[in-house]
């Protein structure tokens, strides 16, 4: 087909369009461009993402020994996982369990009740098997986590890396969203120097997390850091935050926020600036206050962007590893150790099975959280907005 087609192009007198090697080659490329465009990406993802994912799963179900130059692999079933959840590593992953205190029971049963009510409402309203199944998974994870916190934090014992990771994700992302939105809103006002603020606020995102970690270690130093006179003045001169679990966790959240608020800020700012001026002006003419304008007009317009940006932020937040590694090495004890760091430490001690098991548990929690977030909040919102 290509032969007579090329020569049939009358009008344009293409010199010797007939079957030179080059023409044939470009015709071939053109005919296979469908595959050509997408294959590299697919192959790369298969090799560097899917294959490792499957291999990791196999490792998570095995005990691996390094022998000479090679490995020996023994299949051990769920051993690695059960060790994390029920066995000798439970304190590390879930936390040190104590008999659940009264407060713990109230909290755990409260969450259970809420979740059951929510499921019941869904089941009686618009029931689909898949939707229900998804909600059951979300609900069981929520209840499981609630009881985990009930048996550890609320009963006076420390929680493990799972709890720490969730702390980073939910508290950290929550703070970051509020501040990011606030800054974006301020910067979207008609003020002078907007560009200056925009550029300055964006800078932390550029800085390597390692650098952020060390910079904040300096900041937080109560004896030699820049704020040490202040600490002395309030009487905390000899307080070392690195030995207090909550102070350490909060400090990591502060550093993480410093680094990531710019991302939320810059996207929300762009979204705010994209809200058509006429809407706002029409409302101003109608005499709406700025608060009403924000909640009735601006906010609904940026919700989709906000949801997406938070989804991305949550996904990245689950991976947190650099900051705790640099700032505290996971200490004091395991108080600031995230699941990624937990997995990294397991790998350092050459326990590959445990390392992969923790990584998979992280993946599971991330996926359930993100899918729930997406399906329940983003999609729900979209439906509500028509």
């Amino acid at each position, binding site marked *: 087909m290509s032969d007579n087609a090329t020569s049939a192009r009358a009008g344009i007198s293409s010199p010797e369009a007939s079957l030179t090697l080059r023409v044939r080659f470009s015709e071939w490329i053109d005919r296979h*461009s469908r595959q*050509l*465009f*997408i294959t590299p*990406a*697919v192959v790369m*993802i298969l090799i*560097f993402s899917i*294959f*490792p994912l499957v*291999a*990791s799963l*196999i490792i998570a179900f*095995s005990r691996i020994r390094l022998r000479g130059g090679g490995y020996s*692999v023994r*299949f051990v079933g769920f051993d690695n996982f059960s060790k994390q959840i029920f066995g000798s590593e439970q304190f590390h992953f879930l936390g040190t369990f104590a008999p659940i205190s009264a407060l713990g029971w109230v909290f755990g049963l409260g969450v259970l009740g809420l979740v059951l009510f929510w499921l019941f409402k869904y089941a009686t309203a618009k029931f689909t098997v898949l939707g229900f199944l998804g909600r059951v998974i979300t609900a069981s994870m929520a209840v499981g986590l609630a009881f985990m916190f009930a048996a550890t934090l609320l009963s006076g014992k420390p929680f493990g890396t799972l709890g720490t990771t969730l702390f980073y994700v939910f508290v950290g992302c929550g703070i970051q969203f509020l501040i990011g939105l*606030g*800054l974006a809103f*301020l910067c979207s*006002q*008609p*003020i002078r120097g907007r560009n200056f603020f925009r*550029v300055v*606020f*964006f*800078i932390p*995102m*550029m800085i*390597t*997390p*390692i*650098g952020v970690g*060390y*910079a904040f270690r*300096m*900041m937080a130093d109560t*004896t*030699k850091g*820049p*704020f040490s006179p202040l600490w002395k003045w309030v009487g905390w001169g000899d307080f070392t935050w690195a030995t207090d679990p909550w102070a350490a966790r909060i400090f990591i959240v502060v550093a993480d926020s*410093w680094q990531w608020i710019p991302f939320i800020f810059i*996207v929300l*700012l762009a979204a705010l600036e*994209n809200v058509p001026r006429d809407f706002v002006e029409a409302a101003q003419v109608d005499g709406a206050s700025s608060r009403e304008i924000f909640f009735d007009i601006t906010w609904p317009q940026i919700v*989709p*962007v906000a949801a*997406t*940006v938070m989804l991305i932020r949550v996904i990245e937040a*689950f991976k947190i590893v650099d900051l705790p590694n640099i700032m505290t090495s996971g200490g004091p004890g395991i108080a600031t150790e995230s699941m*990624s760091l937990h*997995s*990294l430490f397991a*790998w350092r001690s050459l326990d*590959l099975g445990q*390392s992969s098991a923790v990584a*998979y548990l*992280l*993946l599971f929690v991330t*996926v359930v959280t*993100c899918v729930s977030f997406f399906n329940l909040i983003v999609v729900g919102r979209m439906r509500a907005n028509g």
Partner: protein
Amino acid sequence: MAERTLMERLFEPAQIGHMPVGTKIVVYSLLLFWTAFVLFPIYWVFITSFKSAVDVNSGPVYLPFIDFKPSLHAWKELFVFDWEDTLKAYTNSIIISLFATALSVLIGSMAAYALARIEYAPKFGSILIFVLSMIAAFVGVGVYGVDWRLACAVAVAVFFFLIKALGRFYAARLGNGDILFWMISQRILAPVVVVVPIYMMFQSVGLLDTHLAIILTYAVVNLPIVIWLMYDFFKSIPIELEESAQLDGATRLLTFFDIVLPLSKAGLAATTLLVMILAWNEYLLALFLSTSKAQTMPILVAAMNAGERGILWWNMSVVIVVMIIPVVVMAIILQRFIAKGMLLGAVKG
């Protein structure tokens, strides 16, 4: 007109669109506070790089020339005594982030373009068969110690055989949206989930601690971002431009490079910058994949901590400053693009 109270005068606009004085004060103080919060740690790192050990250890000093006498000793140490290590890490970082970014942006935007413009409909059954035969191969290699080359060959053969044999019996197909979601969702994988097998893979082909290994890994890790951002850019280009080129006789490849890419400059700039920053700052994967030859800057920074004398903050600060200067300069120049680029992606989700 009635007398306005002080509060009213402070917080009610004189005119629509004008900001009352009181609000203005609040807004500016908040913004300036945040500016200080953002800049102070950077400033501190910067001046620390000019401090001597005494300046650091004897409590905080804040202002160069006034509080303390800046010295270049830390800079000297890094650039004179440790010149080779620094230079090596720096060039490694540059090479790796440049090539990884280029590769990622090229492959990612080609895939994004394909998904935006060409219809794909892979059969669901074929994918299932593919996955199953690959898993069988892995189990064969991992558990039973079959040679991996043999296992792969057998798996591919089995795959094609089954497709031919069973192809007629299933019809369910996936669409572009599913492929797009599959590719973007790879971003959810934390590096720790995949890095151990990647490590083993590179070890078995002898590529550990080489540029190539890190470049390939970085490229794939950032592929979802490229695809996600560029997909919406390509979607927003009027399709008539490409159709017109097609009618004029341009091939798809030519259309892509001659028409589509030049029109997505803003998106490309944002994506490139973002990926470059991520690659430049990446730590965990580099920690696994490089031991000495291919060490990048973040590893060098982290390694500053290893001495017995505790952390040498002044040296550490120098390395951090050296690391952040290029990205910050680049980002300040290009930050407008970033916002635009990310917004496009984010709006569509």
